[in-house]
């Protein structure tokens, strides 16, 4: 009995999440080819909804996201490939619409910036660890002092 009583709230919590995850973006788009459907599903996860803060168009119910899903669907069912759809969107909405921005002059810093920072950090770290003249020589007086302290402890 205690098991059942324990499971009920857990199940309720799980159900709560299930009902939420299936809520966004229900369009009844029919594809004649499962490959096209897979491409569509991939692309709506890779295109940013420009009016929402950090949501892909597959995840948003904004009017613009619906329109962009429709456009994506139209292009894919016409037989266009991934590059074509991404180009189409980037030409109109800029690199911002792509969740994985392409490498070009505008996005160069975005791609190589983290590596530059990493190199600087490693360089500074090495310098910091190996700072010369950091070691203080352990003299005879220090030794005597240490021994004296240890004796006092005893």
């Amino acid at each position, binding site marked *: 009995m205690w098991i059942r009583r324990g499971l009920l709230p857990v199940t309720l919590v799980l159900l709560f999440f299930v009902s939420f995850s299936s809520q966004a973006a229900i369009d009844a788009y029919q594809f004649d080819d499962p490959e096209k459907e897979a491409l569509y599903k991939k692309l709506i996860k890779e295109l940013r909804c*420009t*009016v929402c*803060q950090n949501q892909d168009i597959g995840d948003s119910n904004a*009017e*613009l996201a619906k*329109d*962009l899903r429709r*456009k994506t669907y139209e292009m894919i069912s016409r037989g266009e490939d991934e590059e074509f759809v991404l180009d189409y969107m*980037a*030409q*109109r*909405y*800029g*690199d*911002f619409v792509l969740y994985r921005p392409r490498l070009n002059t505008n996005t160069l810093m975005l791609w190589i910036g983290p590596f530059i920072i990493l190199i600087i950090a490693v360089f500074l770290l090495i310098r910091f660890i190996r700072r010369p003249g950091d070691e203080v020589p352990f003299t005879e007086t220090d030794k005597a002092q240490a021994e004296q302290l240890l004796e006092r402890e005893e």
Partner: protein
Amino acid sequence: MKRYLIPLAVFIVLVVFLAIGLKLDPKHIPSPFIGKPAPQFDLPVLHNPQQRITTADLKGQVWLLNVWASWCVSCRAEHEVVKRFVAMGETPVYGLNYKDKPEDGKGWLAALGNPYKASLMDINGDVGIDWGVYGVPETFVIDKKGIVRYKQVGPLTDSIVDEKIIPLLRELNTEAG
């Protein structure tokens, strides 16, 4: 002293970057169209659907495209600014009636006044996508060669018109067509 100065310098640089970041509007996306030919359209006119206007028809003059809709709340406030701008007689303004029912659009213009040379019907929003419209109202300035020179996302205000649009138009009107 030096060991305190370096972290302080790093901290100041960080603060400057974060301060710039705070000032940026995440909703503002630079338009990829600036300096590029305006996207083509061929659309029926709202008040006379038999007539169609294309981008090619508008070449040779400087013109504005103002994207509006009757369901767009901030367009209402912007409309007064557009009317004032058109009254100055600088440049023709064409409206793009974006994702609107024609009768709603016509009613809206009848109630608030119609400053547009013509409004074009983009009922399903396809032309809006071609122009990269993501937040109505939006306004584009197109030069004599048909190149997009300026884009305003969100409502025009009197200060934007006076400080940005008018000086730009003065400049564009002196350019050869």
